[in-house]
């Protein structure tokens, strides 16, 4: 479904990603793990079209999407839930969600998806008239994920969903992601919480200093000696 071929990318004169190649297949849940500054977020930003790669190709359903602007990539069915969330803080929860379905013009489909989202996150329905900027960190994260789902994406890129959340909320967010997967949405997730992430993803890639150093099924990655030492502290 998604394939990165020898991507080199970065910001101005700073190159972050070196020859990164990986793929995500339909219906899979794939984790991208690695230390701070390894280039995990840069990878997602490159896929989402917020950064243009210096060389290499990003393919979605076999089509090169490097040169597409971010809004076109979103309309193709790739939804990126960024680390900063990028919510519209001065608007209500409901308006944020409806904007998530901006590319869907049919009003009924929008409202149908909204009803589904409210079923999935009852908390958001309770707060639908509240301004997004006045919500707590966990609720904002929920909202960002929910907004990402409003466009009915085929692939979701989720950046650090557990960052800055208390453990009970973290498990809420993770269970929301699991539900996504049951619904058949393909997910590429970047996480710091390596142990939890590896327990519910299918495959994982380890990114260090801008290079993929390890790849394989999550179970094997979890058993890997290097990963156990460096990330799991066992």
């Amino acid at each position: 479904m998604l394939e990165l071929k020898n991507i080199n990318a970065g910001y101005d004169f700073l190159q972050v990603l070196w020859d990164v190649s990986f793929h995500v297949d339909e219906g899979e849940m794939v984790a991208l793990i690695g230390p701070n500054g390894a280039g995990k977020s840069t990878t997602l930003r490159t896929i989402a079209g917020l950064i243009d790669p210096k060389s290499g190709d990003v393919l979605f359903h076999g089509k090169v999407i490097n040169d597409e602007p971010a809004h076109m990539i979103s309309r193709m069915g790739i939804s990126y839930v960024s680390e900063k969330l990028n919510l519209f803080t001065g608007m209500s929860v409901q308006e944020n969600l409806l904007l998530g379905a901006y590319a869907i013009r049919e009003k009924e489909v929008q409202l149908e998806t909204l009803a589904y989202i409210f079923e999935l996150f009852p908390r958001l329905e309770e707060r639908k008239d509240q301004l997004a900027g006045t919500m707590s960190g966990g609720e904002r994260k929920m909202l960002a994920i929910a907004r990402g789902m409003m466009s009915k994406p085929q692939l979701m890129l989720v950046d650090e969903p557990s960052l800055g959340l208390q453990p009970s909320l973290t498990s809420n967010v993770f269970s929301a992601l699991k539900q996504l997967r049951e619904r058949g949405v393909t997910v590429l997730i970047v996480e710091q919480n390596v142990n939890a992430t590896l327990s519910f993803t299918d495959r994982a890639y380890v990114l260090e200093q801008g290079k993929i150093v390890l790849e394989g099924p999550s179970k094997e990655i979890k058993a890997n000696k290097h990963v156990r030492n460096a990330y799991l502290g066992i």
Partner: protein
Amino acid sequence: MAKYLGARPLLSRIKDNLPIIIISVFAIFLFVAIYIKGGNAQIFNTIITGGLWALLAVGLALVFGVMNIPHFAHGESFMIGAYVAYFTFTPMQEYLYEKPNEFLSMIAPLGAILTAGIAGAILGILIEKMIFSPLRRRTKKDWIMNAFLLTVGLSFVLSNGANLVLGPNFRGISRYWDVDAVEIGGAYMSVDRLVAFAISMVTIGALWFFLRRTRVGRAIRAVSQDETGAQLVGINLNFIQTLTFSLATAMASISGASLLFLFQAYPTVGGTPLYYAWYVVMMAGLGNVVGAIIGGFIVAMLQTATQLFVAVSWTTVLPTVVMILVLLIAPSGIFGSEVKGVQEQ
């Protein structure tokens, strides 16, 4: 205990909203003073001028909030609107002089103003596509400064261009509607003024509805709050930015056209409206559309009060003084919590 807990937030709430409270008290005071000294006539005058400043300031606030452009060529959109209205209205007027037709002479001014609005919208698209869009593609560094300098340059080019092509002559009309003034509460108002006010209110109302209730309007607000977030949900930034600029230019053109009887059309006519619109947005908070509407009326009240109680020649001085005072107390304006639209890289 409970009473104490209840009292604290109230106090801090008063403290947080101090600028708004001061300015509201001040506005009510001004309103009463104008009424006592000038009666209904001056109150209507103030409201009509306020509607004009509000319409201009809303355009500025929109352009700043969505595109981060401190727009100093807004007055030239006003000027172009005045010219377009003049050149469409006078031939119609001549035609109607030869062949009088009551219905057409009622409609003709509205046609001229609408034409000016459409011309303004097209001009806005051209300016955005030819000037700001290339700049945005080249670099986002120092965007606000660069955009500001571009608008100042644009203002020179447009007003001197008008001077070159059309000459420095004043082109004006005495009135749009050849009918008697209307009496409202003992004060006589010309139909032109009333219609100008109605047009500004209808335009602001339509814009308000568009921003609040439609899909594209919501997207405009989304871009002003988070550009990256807007892109991520599939909003085309270029389209929204061009649309916003076009809307703002059209609004300035409409006010230039509807006030042709008051301001005339000449190359530098945009100066005064531009500066008043800037007083309004600086006082109200940059990028705040609602603030711009309220601010428009406050500035108009200040003007009328100055004319009534001090002297006509001080009209620009007092609003400036008040603006400086407001910025000393609340640096981001009365209604601006923080300058949200600005993204420095």
